[in-house]
């Protein structure tokens, strides 16, 4: 009985009725997400981060303002008009005027140039000195490493404020001396960080594999060590810029910063603070710009550190 059943079922379901669903190799290769280069991948991940993009847009607006602000307002940042002293914001003076009758919007824009330039220049100096010294210390090792680390310890232990005060007294109060004073100590941290990274990566097998494949030290540095430290360096850079801007603001605030008639956000805030009780707008606007700039750098840095990590795909 059972046998006959099987036979009948075999007759009903003939082989021709079935189609083999195999693996189509040529199709499977197209199924994956299209391949992107490393930086395209980073940008894709960064773009997805709404906060970081907001930061980037805010920073672009602030930068644009410092460039075209004076043209927009049509006022000169040094021009004093005694008939319009200490006015609150109005249609002709968007951020109001100060005690000398100067347009605050124009002054904030021009002051932003100094603040941003100082932030970027100091970071550049810090990054260049720090990564070169750190890379040498990490790669060479031995007494060179010892020497650089001892110098780092020495410089790192100098009291920051006293050094800055002495430097600005000796070198005068200009853009150059400010940059010098602010970045004089800052490279120590970068040196330590880069050295640590290099030491860690240098011992990894993929560096040994490259050496076993005949790569010279130039190729190892460019292809293996640098790209693997770049992520953390970029994050440190974006986080360092607001630090320097704030540092400049602080020095200007205590009167060691940029010298009039040039101005910066810190100097403007210092001037506004004296008259806070009666004309709060004089302090409010430069401070607002500082806060927006620092916030956007931090947001960008946060987004970058996530985007640069290839393990965090989505």
């Amino acid at each position: 009985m059972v046998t006959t059943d099987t036979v009948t079922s075999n007759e009903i379901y003939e082989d021709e009725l079935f189609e083999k669903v195999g693996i189509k190799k040529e199709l499977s290769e197209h199924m994956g997400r299209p391949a992107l280069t490393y930086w395209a991948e980073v940008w894709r991940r960064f773009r997805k981060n709404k906060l970081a993009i907001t930061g980037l847009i805010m920073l672009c607006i602030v930068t644009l303002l410092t460039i075209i602000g004076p043209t927009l307002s049509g006022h000169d940042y040094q021009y004093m008009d005694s008939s319009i002293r200490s006015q609150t914001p109005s249609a002709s003076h968007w951020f109001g005027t100060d005690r000398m009758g100067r347009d605050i919007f124009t002054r904030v824009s021009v002051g932003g140039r100094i603040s941003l330039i100082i932030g970027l220049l100091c970071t550049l100096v810090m990054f260049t000195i720090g990564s070169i010294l750190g890379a040498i210390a990490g790669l060479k090792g031995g007494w060179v490493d010892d020497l650089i680390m001892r110098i780092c310890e020495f410089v790192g232990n100098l009291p920051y404020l006293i050094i800055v005060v002495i430097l600005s007294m000796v070198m005068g109060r200009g853009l150059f001396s400010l940059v010098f004073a602010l970045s004089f100590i800052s490279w120590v941290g970068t040196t330590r960080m880069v050295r640590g990274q290099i030491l860690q990566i240098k011992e990894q097998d993929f560096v040994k594999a490259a050496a076993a494949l005949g790569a010279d030290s130039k190729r190892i540095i460019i292809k293996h060590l640098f790209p693997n430290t770049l992520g953390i360096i970029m994050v440190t850079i974006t986080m360092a810029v607001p630090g320097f801007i704030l540092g400049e603001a602080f020095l200007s605030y205590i009167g060691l910063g940029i010298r009039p008639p040039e101005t910066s956000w810190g100097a403007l805030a210092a001037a506004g603070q004296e008259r806070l009780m009666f004309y709060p707008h004089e302090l409010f606007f430069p401070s607002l710009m500082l806060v927006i700039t620092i916030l956007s750098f931090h947001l960008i840095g946060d987004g970058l550190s996530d985007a640069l990590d290839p393990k965090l795909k989505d």
Partner: protein
Amino acid sequence: MANKTITVEVKDLKKYFMLPTKKYLKAVDGVSFNIYKGETLGLVGESGCGKTTCGKTILGLYDATAGEVNFDGFSVHKKSKKERKDFTKRAQIIFQDPYSSLNPRMTVGDIIAEGIDIHGIHNGKDRKDKLFELISMVGLNKEHISRFPHEFSGGQRQRIGIARALAVEPEFIVCDEPISALDVSIQAQVVNLLIDLQKKKNLTYLFIAHDLSMVKYISDRVGVMYLGNLVEITSSHQLYRDPKHPYTKALLSSIPIPDPKIERNKKIIPLEGEVSSPINPIAGCKFASRCSLAKDMCRNQVPTLKEVDNQHFVACHFIDRI
């Protein structure tokens, strides 16, 4: 055996590492052996006995403290810069850890093609074709070329490492525990891949491992290391059938047998005592502190490798008694 051509000749190789305390760690302390063309020489021993250091020193990744490594008649450690670069094209390495051996910031294609790029072997379309050939040879997909290493499993990563080593078409490959970081089911895949490739390309392997049954499977000859010294070397068949050195005997007795009846009645030779330190090794035979046969002679005199049988070398004072 004797009429085979020697690919790698290791002569009294020593590699000491200077410690911060100004003492030397003797990782490899006078090792000599030959590797013949087309064969697989297994190198076994417990962790810290200098297997990996030995392999890396043979490739010139470490400078030798003393001794010589001759590859096809050339001294590896005395080569000029250009000769060294040529040597890297002929001798390659597969690493133990498939996670740290691939640069996380490079695509799989760039990783595999690194040797091709360094030596400028192929360019443009040739390079792409070669990449496709290599990646399918190790059983991966073409589309994997543009991916990053972290998207792959351990076994796949190890294949990428194998493809990278094969890209320069070497004759000799040091396999530094290529399977110990992998899951058992994947170990077989990788080992079979290595065997296939060896047959196809007539490769010579130095296979470093601590998995004794796997070494037996892949190797033609096996060398046993203990604390920087070679204690026994012979054909794989001979070693597993008739081990001579007390250390080898103890090692082999520890291999589990997949049959509970035999396993239950098997006599395991336990090793007692401590491994002596590679920084302050004891005088005489280094194994004397753990050897049940050790006599005064063992604590004073260092035993040398002696041929006890056809191509069967053992370093022990009491070969006759065991």
